[in-house]
């Protein structure tokens, strides 16, 4: 017989709960201060220049936006693919998706030259611009996932939640396609200019979003002192492994394709061999930390069962993801424009010759971290107000196929 799952708020009176809010709140305030400082003084107090126009804040912003759509996956698996075992986690998954997107967008907006003109961006649409499309996709995501969440939480609307789930799934795929296309459509930069960017971002979003979801889920249940079944953790960590491998597959195909094209040899040599910090971040950050190590941790029999190892693997996926964004976004701009193929500028009175340098400033990093903290602080606040999570996530409670071990 199908068991009825009881959802609950969190108590939120413990010292730990308030400590968490204080720490995250302080980071949010620091981020807000950094944004104010950059807005007041202008672009030049950042490490960004005329050549590197998107820097550290965008690394965090794009990462969070990509992760947001991935965080919705758990909900999609339950509603679109009808996997009952994932259903109890669906509201938390949708909540995390909204909070991550909000955190990412806050960074993106505050890093705009003119955040005060957001109303202009909302009222004058150039429909040829993928950037304008993204604004529609982001706003639509809030609405659709918001409705989905409402249908899941409101019993009278529960019958419609499946349809809302379908819409949200379709929308999230479109959203990440749009985010990837911000880079894929840029033919002027050798580091982007590839249709594979869109599907690559979709698969990357699966991994980033699930890694954050796993951490949030495990932290929530561990801090609440409630049970989180091994079956659920095992299922999610195996899925995370598949997503990491999928993301790495796309990275390999992307670089192999570029290596095959002679005109892309320059940029590939830059990323894979000669790019200094970008090469190091690619191999050590993106591939080793973000791919190989978590895969080992998740699948090695010794570590695969340890929740500490799984948490650690999830953190590595997040760090690797940030490295990947840095290589893609900053590295893609640092590589010089090839005005005359094979020739490079030897002198320029404007400091714009050769490979562009970028040193992120503290303010930029704080804005990024502040946005991340903002995404996270919404979770404990929302969990205290509404019933997003099941009282218990014990396997016997939520898994219809659960058999007691003999």
């Amino acid at each position, binding site marked *: 017989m199908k068991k009825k799952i009881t959802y609950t708020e969190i108590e939120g009176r413990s010292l730990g709960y308030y400590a968490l809010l204080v720490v995250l709140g302080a980071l949010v305030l620091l981020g807000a201060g950094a944004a104010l400082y950059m807005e007041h003084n*202008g*672009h*030049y107090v950042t490490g960004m*220049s*005329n*050549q590197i*126009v*998107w820097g550290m804040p965008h690394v965090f912003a794009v990462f969070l936006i990509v992760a947001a759509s991935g965080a919705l996956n758990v909900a999609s698996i339950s509603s679109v693919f009808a996997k009952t075992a994932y259903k109890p986690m669906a509201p938390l998954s949708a909540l995390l998706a909204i909070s991550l997107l909000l955190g990412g967008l806050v960074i993106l907006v505050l890093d*705009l*030259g*003119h*955040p005060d*003109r*957001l109303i*202009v*961006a909302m009222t*004058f*649409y*150039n429909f*040829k*611009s*993928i*950037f*304008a499309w993204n*604004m529609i996709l982001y706003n639509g995501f809030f609405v659709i996932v918001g409705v989905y969440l409402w249908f899941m939480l409101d019993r009278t609307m529960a019958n419609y939640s499946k349809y809302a789930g379908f819409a949200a799934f379709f929308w999230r795929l479109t959203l990440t396609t749009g985010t990837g296309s*911000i880079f894929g*459509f*840029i*033919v*002027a*930069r050798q580091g982007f200019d590839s249709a594979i960017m869109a599907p690559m971002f979709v698969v990357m979003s699966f991994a980033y979003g699930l890694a954050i979801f796993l951490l949030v889920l495990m932290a929530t249940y561990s801090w609440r002192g409630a049970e989180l079944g091994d079956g659920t953790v095992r299922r999610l960590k195996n899925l995370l492994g598949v997503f990491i491998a999928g993301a790495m597959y796309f990275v390999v195909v992307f670089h192999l394709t570029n290596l095959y094209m002679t005109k892309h040899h320059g940029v590939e040599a830059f990323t894979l061999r000669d790019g200094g910090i970008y090469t190091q971040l690619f191999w050590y950050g993106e591939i080793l930390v973000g791919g190989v190590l978590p895969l080992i941790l998740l699948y090695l029999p010794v570590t695969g069962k340890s929740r500490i190892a799984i948490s650690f693997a999830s953190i590595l996926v997040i760090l690797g993801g940030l490295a990947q964004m840095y290589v893609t976004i900053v590295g893609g*701009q640092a590589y010089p*424009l090839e*005005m*005359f193929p094979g*020739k*490079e*500028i*030897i*002198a*320029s*009175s*404007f*400091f*714009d*010759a050769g490979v562009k340098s970028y040193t992120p400033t503290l303010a930029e990093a704080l804005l990024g971290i502040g946005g991340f903290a903002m995404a996270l602080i919404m979770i404990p606040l929302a969990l205290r107000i509404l019933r997003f999570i099941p009282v218990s996530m014990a396997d016997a409670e939520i898994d219809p196929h659960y058999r007691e071990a003999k």
Partner: protein
Amino acid sequence: MTQLALVIDLNVCVGCHACVTSCKEWNTSGPAGFMTDENPYSKDPTGTFFNRVQTYEIGEFPATETLHFPKSCLHCEDPPCVPVCPTGASYKRKEDGIVLVDYDKCIGCRYCSWACPYGAREIDEKQQVMKKCTLCVDRIYDTSLPDTERKPACVLACPTSARLFGDVHDSESDISIKIREEGGYQLMPEWGTKPANHYLPRRKTRLHIHEDELVRADNPLKKEQRGPSKPVDAPTLDDSTSW
């Protein structure tokens, strides 16, 4: 349709930066200002320039030569920076083909900077909007100026007349004739952006002098029936007299 543009003669550009400074002077004081510079005379200077001169070295040492390459917005006929702008702040004027930015509509997302394959987009770090060469649109139509001065500041300032201004769609304009007759070319035509600005290539003029040409076969003194002068080392009158 008119398409205003610059033609830059790389053969005579000497890299003096007069175009850079005059551009900065005119535009800083005009509606396109401020074109902020930060720390211009100290460590890590940054600044907004609509026109930059970059220097390339051609060939392998020791057979090398230096090429000065002035670069500003090329006012493409199909500009990639225009479709990417989310608010439509970046636009191309129908009447004269100049690509401009509406500073009041620009939200400072800097996406156009990514899209321009020529790196001609500039952020004003203080005003936090994207800017670029306007072809001195506030000057070329200014009827209070004499006709001869209704040209972009850089064109007027160039000491070697390496910069020419006109309508590339008018086949009889000075610059169209230059482009046609002197091998004017567009930057990266394979992108299909159809840059309106053109460059004239470096042109080598070599003078070949044959040895025979150094000896005068038709000495004009013959016509005057005077014998050619003595060889330089032959004894002179001073050598043969003793007083």
